[in-house]
């Protein structure tokens, strides 16, 4: 009886859907289909290809005839001497990056909010956004020129350090150049939030004799708090998905001790050494950790954001 009712409701739904589809076919065929096809082909088909993480994949044998080796590649990863170094490098680079680059944009927004002349503020912002549009390659090229042993930085300090070859400098250069490039850009969201704070509140605080520090603490920071929390959680969720492009552009044979992270390892294994299955396994490990982090973060955001996640 119950079963019958269920099939009844499914067919009723299909009926309803058929009617809706006939009336609104354009929505599916003209609007949705192109994007859906691109997604299925270029995002979902590769997910099926993850199967080679469990195979001794050979391009000649293909997905179905390559030898099945189960979790061997994962055992190989977890027992390899490189695994811990790669994981630590990845976490350190993105962790330190988060800690160092998170607060400067907030401070910048607070400072800009105090600039009275709208014209100066506008022009300053244009200057601060500029580095964001410099490409990764050009940025890496600039770093190499500025920090070369005969470059201007060494000239200023009268030293001749080969920054790009010293592994202990890699993280500082990566994070420092990142702050330089994104501080203005990342401050937009805070600047626009502050623009929405009523100036009356600040005026009232001023009349009450509050110092600037007190005004910031009691008026501006509380207004920014929700944005700060969400931004922080979002960045924390992205900790395993640190960009490959910039690290790879800044990597040299000599700074690999610190600059080798999981994504560059995946690249080297797969495209340079042809170890397809193992490379896929390492990539899958990274994606799964990332997925868990993102789901956790999305859960927290939706709790904070009145039930609306991404």
């Amino acid at each position, binding site marked *: 009886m119950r079963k019958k009712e269920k099939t009844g409701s499914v067919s009723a739904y299909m009926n309803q*859907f058929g009617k809706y*589809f006939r009336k*609104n076919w*354009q*929505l*599916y065929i*003209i*609007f*949705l289909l*192109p*994007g*859906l096809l*691109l*997604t299925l082909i*270029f*995002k*979902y*088909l*590769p*997910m*099926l290809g993850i199967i*080679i993480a469990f195979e001794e994949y050979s*391009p000649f044998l293909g997905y179905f005839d390559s030898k099945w080796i189960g979790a061997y590649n994962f055992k190989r990863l977890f027992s390899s001497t490189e695994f811990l170094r790669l994981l630590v490098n990845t976490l350190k680079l993105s962790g330190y990056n988060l800690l160092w680059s998170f607060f400067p944009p907030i401070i910048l927004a607070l*400072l800009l909010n105090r600039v009275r002349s709208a014209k100066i503020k506008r022009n300053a912002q*244009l200057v*601060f*956004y*500029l580095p964001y*549009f*410099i*490409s*990764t*390659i*050009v940025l890496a*090229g*600039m770093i*190499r*020129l500025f920090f070369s042993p*005969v470059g201007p930085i060494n*000239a200023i300090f009268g030293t001749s350090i080969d920054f790009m070859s010293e592994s202990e400098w890699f993280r500082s250069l990566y994070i420092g150049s990142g702050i330089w490039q994104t*501080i203005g*850009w990342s401050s*937009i*969201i805070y600047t*626009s939030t502050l623009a929405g704070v009523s100036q009356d509140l600040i005026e009232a605080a001023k009349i009450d004799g509050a*110092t*600037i520090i007190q005004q910031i603490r009691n008026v501006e920071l509380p207004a920014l708090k929700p*944005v700060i929390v969400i931004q922080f959680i979002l960045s924390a969720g992205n900790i395993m998905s640190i960009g*490959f492009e910039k690290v790879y*552009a800044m990597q040299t044979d000599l700074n690999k001790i610190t600059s080798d992270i999981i994504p560059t390892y*995946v690249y080297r294994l*797969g*495209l340079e050494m042809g170890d*397809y299955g193992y*490379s896929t396994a390492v*990539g*899958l490990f990274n*994606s799964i950790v*990332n997925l868990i982090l993102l789901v956790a973060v999305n859960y927290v955001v939706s709790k904070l954001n009145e039930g609306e996640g*991404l």
Partner: protein
Amino acid sequence: MNNKKKSTITQDKVVTWGGNLLLILLTVLIIVPVAYILLCSIMNPSVRNSVGVSLNLKNWTLEGYRRVFQDPNIWRGFRNSFFYSIVFTVISVTVTLLTAYPMSRNDFMGKKFFNAIFVFTMFFGGGLMPTYLLMDQLGLVNTVWAILLPGALNVWNMILARSYYKTVPIELYEAASMDGSTEVQYFFKILIPVCKPIIAVLCLYQFVAMWNSYFDAMIYLDDQNLQPLQLVLRSILVQNQINPNLVANMEKLAETAKLADLLKYSTIVISSVPLIVLYPFFAKSFEKGVMIGSVKG
């Protein structure tokens, strides 16, 4: 009381001045490297090496630019990058705007299901090798489609467009359907014209993203004739491979090295010209995009 007020005022003065000083410092930190590159690109390399940058016109030279402009790789890179950026922008923004439309309609049946399909790709993907092998099997490696198609539907941009559509008054749609217009007619004749701001933002996002990216081109395009500017720049700036013809008539090795640096500076400037020319126009649009995004954030 008076004293307290006085100390408040001095404290505020210190804070204000400290803040302004920080802003000035940051401005300098951003402008100086950029200006330094501009200057070095026209500085006689021997002078730069011995005395540093100088404002003396006598020490300036356009040699770097002259030589970079002779490099056919740069020109080809420019041509390819313009092609990829323009075509990618058109494909990507069209697909994104189309997809966002049904997803913005509350009555769209299957909305939740399709949304899950799209959003999941933001959280998880096949990874490098499975994607590469698929592209290989589809025969797309070493074709322009490897660059243009995979990232064409950007889910984040789709969400931006969708939230923008939702701000358009529903009365427009009701009036249009009363007049008997189809979805396609409503979309192109009524919705798109009122969505110009978000379309401009999406176009800029995709154009700049494509112009500045190099990863997909690096793994999918072996053919030099297809390579975008960023890959040409990569071989010059990162891999230190300078077209030997451009430094050929330099006799000493040291001279060659100095000239190589000059060429790097000139290359950086030349490659940045398109974005710098457009910059004042699009900085504002980008800012708008961030704010539209933060509504949903």
